[in-house]
């Protein structure tokens, strides 16, 4: 299918972009990498009247290690973040998740903020943002506000940005010392959309016990969910097979799963349990970085 007509704007400054959003509101969409937006436009499911490209705003193209986290600007391409030295060292969960995002050409052009704003229920990055309590910096001509991840994701393809706002940047908190992380997903095919996935970061105390677990699960019907009850249960325990299995069982009972022709609800629930268990065992066994696929 060919996309429907639209007017095109390519401001060269963030203020120019925000001015367009203020003027057009809901009728306008931001074009960054286009890897989530353009398929829907080509299939004519999405017909914005005004497309505002931010590709000429150099000021939005940055990966900055800031004081309390790694900041990715709206134009930070997924591939660049996936291979960023600081990201690999201090936000390993983000990098592990990025290996699973789309295919290589999608990641070359797709942006971290674009995937977050699109909020597909089976997208990996929202799960990471929720797990790490990332901060979303929403900008509009009226000013900026910081939206914590748990308030940013509302539902399937639904975020809490106002029509005149754009996601200017996202800040992923660094992993504390003695942390290990792992991202696992499983689908009907070895590559492609998952049936369910788990984003996990565990910080260990001196005694080898889990001092802080961060766990988010995707595969429900709406959007990835934080499993806070499981995190609380894990705090203070030594992660072994029994604990991991119990954590998996508990998380599965929390998540709101739905069935579709890819997998029925019962399978999704059981898969969440298995993936959480295996993620915990992988993190506990020190083999934290999962195999680098492309």
């Amino acid at each position, binding site marked *: 299918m*060919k996309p429907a007509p639209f007017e095109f704007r390519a401001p060269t400054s963030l203020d120019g972009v925000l001015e367009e959003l203020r003027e057009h509101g809901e009728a306008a969409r931001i074009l960054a990498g286009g890897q989530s937006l353009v398929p829907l436009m080509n299939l004519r499911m999405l017909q914005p009247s005004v497309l505002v490209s931010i590709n000429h705003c150099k000021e939005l193209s940055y990966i900055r290690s800031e004081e309390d986290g790694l900041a990715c600007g709206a134009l930070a391409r997924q591939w660049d973040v996936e291979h960023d030295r600081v990201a690999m060292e201090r936000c390993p969960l983000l990098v592990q998740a990025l290996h699973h995002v789309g295919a290589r050409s999608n990641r070359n052009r797709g942006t971290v903020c674009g995937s977050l704003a699109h909020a597909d229920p089976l997208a990996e990055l929202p799960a990471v943002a929720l797990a790490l309590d990332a901060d979303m910096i929403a900008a509009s001509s009226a000013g900026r506000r910081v939206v914590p991840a748990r308030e940013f994701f509302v539902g399937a393809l639904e975020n809490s940005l106002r029509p005149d706002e754009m996601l200017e940047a996202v800040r992923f908190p660094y992993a504390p010392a003695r942390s290990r992380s792992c991202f696992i997903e499983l689908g*009907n*095919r*070895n590559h*492609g959309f998952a049936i369910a996935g788990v984003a996990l970061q565990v910080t260990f105390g001196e005694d080898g016990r889990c001092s802080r677990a961060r766990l988010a699960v995707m595969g429900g019907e709406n959007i990835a969910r934080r499993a806070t009850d499981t995190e609380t249960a894990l705090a203070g325990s030594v992660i072994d097979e029994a604990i991991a299995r119990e954590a998996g069982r508990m998380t599965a009972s929390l998540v709101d799963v739905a069935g579709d*022709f890819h*997998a029925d609800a019962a399978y999704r629930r*059981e*898969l969440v349990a298995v993936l959480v268990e295996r993620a915990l065992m992988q993190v506990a066994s020190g083999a934290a970085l999962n195999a680098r696929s492309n």
Partner: protein
Amino acid sequence: MIAPGHPRSIGKHVPRREDPYLLRGEGRFLDDIAEPKDTLFLSFAMSPHAHARILAIRTDAARALPGVVDVYTAEDMARLVKPIRTVIEIQGYRASSRTVLAQGEVRFVGEHVAVVVAEDPYIAQDAAELIEVDYEPLPAAVRLEEADSETAPLVHEDIPRNVMFEAAFASPDFQSAFQSAETIVSETFRTGRVAGVPLEPRGCLALLDHVADSLLFYTSTQIPHLARTALSEILDFPEPRIRVVTPEVGGGFGTKAQFYTEEVVTAALALNLRRPIKWVQDRREELLTSIHARDHIYRLEAAIDAQGRIKALRTDLTTNAGAYSSYPFGCTLEATGGARMIVGPYDIRNYAFRTRAIATHTCPSGAYRGVAQPSCFMAIEGLMDRIGRKLGIDPATVRQRNLIRNEQLPYTNVLGVRYDTGSYEECLRRALERIDYWNFRKQQAEARDDDEVLRGIGICCFTEVAGAGSGGWRVRGLTKVPGFDSASIKVEPTGKVTLLVSQAAAGQGHLTTFAQVLADYLGVKVEDVFVSEGDTGTAPYGTNTFASRGAVAAGGAVIKAAQSLRQKIARIAAFLLDVDVERVELTESKAIDKENPEKSVDFRQVAQIAYSMTSVALPQGESFGLEVVEMYDPPLATWPNAVHAVVVAVDRRTAKVSIEKYVVVHDSGRLINPMIVDGQIHGGIVQGIGEALMEQIVYDEDGQMLNANLLDYLMPMALDVPRIDISHIETPSIDALGGFKGVGEGGVIGAVPAVTNAVADALAKTGANINRLPLRPSYLLREMRRQQAGMDGDRQ
């Protein structure tokens, strides 16, 4: 006639001539053809309903859009073309015809209700969205299991209970054989609906030649000649004034071996508007409207003896025909194919079947690679494993006891079909050896019950119907499918050879393989042969490319033409060499006196005489030119055979399947180019892996398709493919010229049953009965859980 020293090309890994231009991206696929500036573009408005009455169509908004030339509905098209009617002369078939745009009623989601003609494809799609159609939704017959019930909505008023085709057969003393057997093993198998999904969607370009008032029609097809005849009949336009040209085709797999309504609309509008018209399908339309396949239910009952030998087999097959009988193969192809081919390489003397094609409000089905054989062999090979489990005999042994013995060949099976040669036992023996079968069974027996990974091994022994001649198509009522193929050989005045064949490749490397055949049978150097096909303006008439027929039918025609032309070359050479014609041998584009080989004349010299371009006149009585056309009608069919053996590991907790070992022992008779044969087997196997593990066209109960995109219709990618170990046995056919048997579909036919049996074997220990496709993890886990619940129930 051909000098023993002439370097043979058949059997060699000759790298393909097609590669250089394709690797530079210079292959001209349909949409790559530079269309004239005044070309108009089509876009179809599609039905969102599976079954509905069309109350009104308002096209004024669409017409008013700048750049739109016209909008046509069914009534407009009815003035230009006749409906497509698939005639199959077989008992039990109820013919149905199809208007090129839905008239009065839509019968499947995606059926075209109107077409926009515009100056730009973008604008054409804008306009298609402005067409307003008032529908009265009607109840739809969707699920095959219910579509033939008394109360099911009718797809065609004149076809009671939607039974478009029904046939039965019973061998003479079937009943007594069935009753007398000691044990009956029965099972129902359900295969999932899939589609060929070539990477290049369909498309066509119709150009007018005003001088000769003729139609030059490019279309991404496998059947240029059959399409040309169909176009002539439906457009009521003289066939001599139609030329169908096949561009590079981006994958066919049978999907493009049908003739479609959009081809008629494109040609008709070009003639009507006297402007070039181009239509390029997008992926969503391709998944909605190109033929589907394998939506089948098999109920098998085998009467067996204590040794596990099948004394009598009964098959009850129901296939989903979709809304219309596709052209030219119709809805009977899968129904007759599945019922007839299922006996495969087994010595089954008593056989009965009932087979039916049921119409539903879904996309028409048609001939996709393997045509029913992947499904029917999944059924029979699944039954072989169940016979083994029931009697406690290893499934490999059950097969060894049922296979046709070598000494029985040539063998006429219970349906009267002749298998001339084969290697059924040898293929099984070597496959078991290469996959280390017995050692695997030992390890499997020792595996602990609580392993996280369940391993299984699956076998498929099969025969593949290939290279079918006119007899083969007639016996199945497909009288519109001729069966013969033809080759025209011209040694040009400069001595180079032009070879034209009635085929249309979609990646099979015909330009290379037919040059290899001609080189060996005409004594010409491969590099002196120039092959061309797919253009009805140059290539002689034939049956074209599908059902693994290329090598057999066109290869045979090339041999027949070469055998006839080389006589003339030898006669002229004998005249030039002044020797007796018996002493003339052809080698490396030369004719030599075999008594003293250094005395020779090359083809160029022979040609110069034949085309009267030298001072020496042709010998008395000899005709001018060096040109011959031969038609070759293969036997009823040729029968490649193979055994696929697969080891899988199933994660007990996620039920994800991974293929650990894949072995193929294949017999396609004499191989022309083993490298290309292996490529066909690789491609077929991976389509089979897709069909077994992940592919399915999904309709909901209202007939809505839920996955008309490539994110939700999953096909295998490189990470899903194991290493594939292929070895060949070459048992030449004695019925087919050249000894070729064909290979196009063997890969997919063997893969579906072998992978399914391996997964079923892996889960057998949990009690799960795996008998339906696809084998998605959620299905496998559900079956394991049901058994666990069932077993716990039993234990209490």
